[in-house]
């Protein structure tokens, strides 16, 4: 019986993948960013990893390339897991989406987009998952201050519209009083 590492090595042959064993014993594959989709496809089809369990990123700011993406795959039939890493950088970080291979990754990719601003090209419904849709920032980036940047902006905008609604007589009255003064 071949080990997981050998199986993965054979499946990813020719993809400039470097495979090592992480401290927890999980085989960890590092591939160049443009080979990710190909690698995922081969992991699924040749190495038998039929479930995607995690898509996330790590921000290594201010190092470049800045983001380290991380996918984890599970093979139920062989009781195996692997981890796939790729580094991307730049102002508009982008990476190929894998939702046509693993539809379940759609939510993880949306969360990753929401928190890090990484665009998964090929993901049709890529919009924010947790933060409000009009929010401008990506909270898990390392240069994002933990108090946020004007966290109340959307609320204030909504609040202004609410006050100016014609039915808000209290506000109209207040305005008139202020005008009279």
């Amino acid at each position: 019986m071949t080990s997981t590492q050998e199986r993965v090595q054979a499946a990813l042959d020719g993809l400039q993948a470097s495979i090592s064993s992480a401290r927890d014993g999980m085989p960890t594959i590092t591939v160049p960013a443009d080979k990710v989709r190909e690698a995922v496809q081969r992991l699924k089809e040749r190495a038998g990893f039929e479930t995607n369990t995690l898509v996330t990123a790590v921000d290594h700011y201010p190092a470049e390339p800045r983001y380290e993406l991380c996918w984890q795959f599970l093979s139920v039939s062989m009781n195996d897991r692997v981890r796939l890493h790729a580094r991307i950088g730049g102002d508009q970080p982008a990476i190929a989406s894998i939702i046509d291979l693993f539809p379940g990754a759609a939510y993880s990719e949306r969360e990753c987009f929401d928190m890090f601003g990484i665009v998964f090209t090929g993901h049709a419904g890529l919009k924010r998952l947790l933060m409000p849709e009009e929010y401008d920032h990506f909270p898990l980036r390392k240069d994002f201050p933990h108090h946020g940047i004007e966290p109340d902006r959307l609320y204030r905008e909504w609040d202004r519209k609410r006050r100016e609604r014609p039915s808000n007589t209290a506000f109209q009255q207040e305005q008139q009083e202020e005008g009279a003064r």
Partner: protein
Amino acid sequence: MGSLIEIKDNPAQEGFLWTRVDELVNWGRKNSLWPMPLGLSCCGIELMAMIGPKFDLARFGAEAARFSPRQADLLVVAGTLTWKMAEACRTIYDQMPDPKWVIAMGVCSSSGGMYDSYSVVQGVDSILPVDVYVPGCPPRPDAVIDAILKLQKKIERERPVELLLQGANTDEGIGTRRFDRAPNRGVPTTRSHEFLPPGQVSDR
């Protein structure tokens, strides 16, 4: 104070009670608070315990929890209020008929608590006028009952008739003279120009 009907020698025997309108109104209001439980996170569980039979809020006349703001006059904000939820919270407050009161239950809703973060409102008093704050994470149900008793004392001191005669006849003015504009404090103020320069990583 005059009387509209002729009183014979002993009014008490004829079923009369003398009181001031203010006190009658306040007595009615304070003993029939209808809470609107806005259970946003863990504190909501303690809130349920408070209404349940063991702590029995019914002893103080406030057990009729309403899940429609139109039928409630006491908003209990129990839990972590996020900026995304803030609009809903303010809408619920606006939909409650006057007079209305607010209890901020737990440190999260009182001050943001341990969530010193970009997504959490640092105290619901940034968006609503709050009457009673209850510290604790979560506060025990007894503490919230104590808050309701304090609120009852506060209601006793209100002067509804005077306010009515003053013509505070706006949507939000009758009775408690509440204002549309909540005091604003405690909103974190980091602006875009305070972005860290590249090469310097926040140690927080």
